């Protein structure tokens, strides 16, 4: 990573990651519909260029924090599709051993500090990573993803203000997909653009076309450099759009099918980038098909992997509540092992 997208190979690789996210979420959509994937899932299709544009500008050591809509960020940051999918299946081989599922994924080795489905919570988490970076004079920084709706939450304000006041090496990336669940942007905010809010914190606010991976990458690289130079946070508003409902199963009474089709037809981040690379003579149709074929194979393997992965042992439910276990948890674990049911279990 830390790519400038300055060579055809890097550009094709960025395109491939976007295709991977799209394809990954096609599988999630279908396997969720089949009831193979339990729980709630929120797809990011349409927003791939934000995840990839941002994460290609980061180093492996940089941390990101994410939201309930975390698949794209996770894959772009380097998490493996097979283990990520296994996590969504609730399997032991998943990134979090099946404990987190779609909405709570972390892999600190890849710099994925955690998805936070409490709306807004990704932002103080990112600010906190920025404190560590600053106090330890690190050469890495933190990026907090959040949605347009989250900006109305108090903890987002507090965390951006804190990072700005302390000039922490953090970049806040607001993915403005224009909706929070069923509520359109204007219903929640009295500004035209989220980026305007940056001036309230005395930090730069940048608006970028979130459908343009190059533009996102360049904006993010500049913000990252600022952060690492000790010049503090930047707020980036990426204008984007989600194609699927808020969650799988959302009937979307709040928007028209024409609106969705318009974005898909005219502003699709993958189509646009593919055309741009083709026009520059960097990508033939065959090469694009080869990317698609390769990604489909990766995803077919990932699905097999996730399906065949082991269920976590039920008793592993007692692990990781604490690092230093509490006798209470140990006692409950032992009683469960002895009795096999938790009725009337005391301490």
């Amino acid at each position, binding site marked *: 990573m830390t790519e400038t997208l300055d060579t055809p190979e890097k550009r094709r690789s960025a395109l491939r990651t976007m295709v991977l996210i799209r394809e990954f979420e096609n599988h999630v959509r279908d396997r969720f519909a089949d009831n193979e994937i339990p729980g709630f899932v929120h797809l990011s299709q349409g927003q791939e260029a934000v995840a990839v544009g941002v994460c290609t500008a980061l180093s492996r050591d940089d941390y990101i924090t994410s939201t309930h809509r975390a698949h794209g960020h996770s894959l772009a940051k380097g998490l493996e599709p097979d283990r990520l999918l296994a996590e969504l299946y609730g399997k032991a081989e998943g990134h979090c051993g099946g404990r987190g599922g779609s909405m709570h994924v972390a892999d600190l080795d890849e710099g994925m500090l955690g998805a936070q489905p409490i709306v807004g919570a990704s932002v103080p988490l990112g600010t906190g*990573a920025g404190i560590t970076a600053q106090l330890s004079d690190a050469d890495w920084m*933190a990026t907090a993803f959040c949605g347009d709706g989250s900006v109305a939450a108090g903890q987002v304000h507090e965390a951006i203000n804190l990072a700005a006041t302390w000039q922490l090496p953090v970049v806040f990336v607001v993915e403005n997909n224009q909706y929070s669940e069923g509520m359109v942007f204007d219903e929640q905010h009295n500004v035209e653009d989220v980026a305007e809010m940056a001036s309230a914190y005395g930090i730069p606010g940048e608006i970028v076309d979130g459908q343009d991976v190059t533009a996102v990458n360049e904006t993010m690289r500049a913000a990252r450099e600022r952060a690492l130079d000790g010049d503090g946070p930047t707020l980036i508003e990426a204008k984007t759009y989600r194609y699927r409902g808020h969650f799988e199963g959302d009937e979307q009474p709040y928007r028209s099918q024409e609106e969705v089709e318009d974005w898909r037809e005219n502003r699709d981040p993958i189509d646009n980038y593919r055309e741009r690379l083709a026009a520059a003579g960097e990508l033939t149709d065959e090469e694009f098909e080869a990317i698609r074929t390769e990604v489909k194979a990766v995803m077919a393997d990932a699905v097999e992997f996730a399906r065949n992965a082991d269920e976590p042992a039920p008793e592993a439910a007692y692990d990781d509540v604490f690092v230093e276990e509490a*006798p209470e948890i140990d006692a409950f674990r032992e009683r469960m092992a002895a009795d096999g049911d938790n009725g009337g279990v005391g301490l």
Partner: protein
Amino acid sequence: MSAETADRETETLSMREAIRAALREELLADDDVFIMGQDEEDGGSFEVTAGLHDEFGFDRVRNTPISEAAQIGSGVGAAATGLRPVVNLSFADFIGVCFDQVMNQAGKTRYMFGGASEVPLTIRAIEGAGLNAAAQHSGTVHTLVAHLPGVKAVAPGTPAAAMGLMKSAVRSNDPVVFFENKTIYERHGDVPTGDDFTVPLGEASIEQAGEDVTVVATQRLLGESIAAARDVDASVEVIDPRSLYPLDTDTLADSLRKTGRLVVADESPLSYGLHAEIVTRVVENAFWSIDAPVQRVGVPDTPIPFAPSQEDEVVPDADDVRRAIQRTV
């Protein structure tokens, strides 16, 4: 007189001094420890950390904006990425504005990520009535926190426990909320010297041995209970649980097996309080030893009123503990 002070060299410290000394030792011992809170550079509320900013500087002891959610939330982020933050929440009543960060972030991060991260975060929270600070600055909320999965909670009643538990809290790789009662900062007691002294999380202390009645008492009410014990015609064992979660069930149940009588004195509101948990654990373990109805002493489910006459009415004291003891014998 706790077990820790029995055969060691000790010095006399106040609760305030003990907490400050513990934090100072941890700042000296580990560069990853840092403190943040409102007015922390001037010692924070009740001047508990006075002098530490001067000694350690802004990187280690710093003021924050009035942003409790960001203080705790960023504390989780800093902890998960390698530091050991000590966040001063100041008045425990303020937990309302950052409860998400305590409940959903501090408490669940490690678990929901399958053990991917550790959250060595300490939160200081100042509780207790008695200063006519009224409803929003007098609460005792530790039951709320002790109830949360993934969070440990301590509430020491002696300087030795304060010193030893603060060091354990900062060294712990789990989130610990450290509750201080604001009315006992000047309570003095013997504290073992030497930086190897700690009190493990989850160990109660028998502060006064006795044969007839067990009084489990926290924080301010520990002192009130020891005073009450002098005024009753019974041999009273007074135990400071010190750590609320984990809770030292064995020490409490063992005492009950000996005395057969139980009073629980804690300043939480009575319903669904710490009292209930302690009683339950004792009943589960020592049911056949119980000789009298158990007694709870606490705040009778009201917010804390301002008027001194009303505050005195609802906040329990030694008299209430004495009457509770007498009801058991």
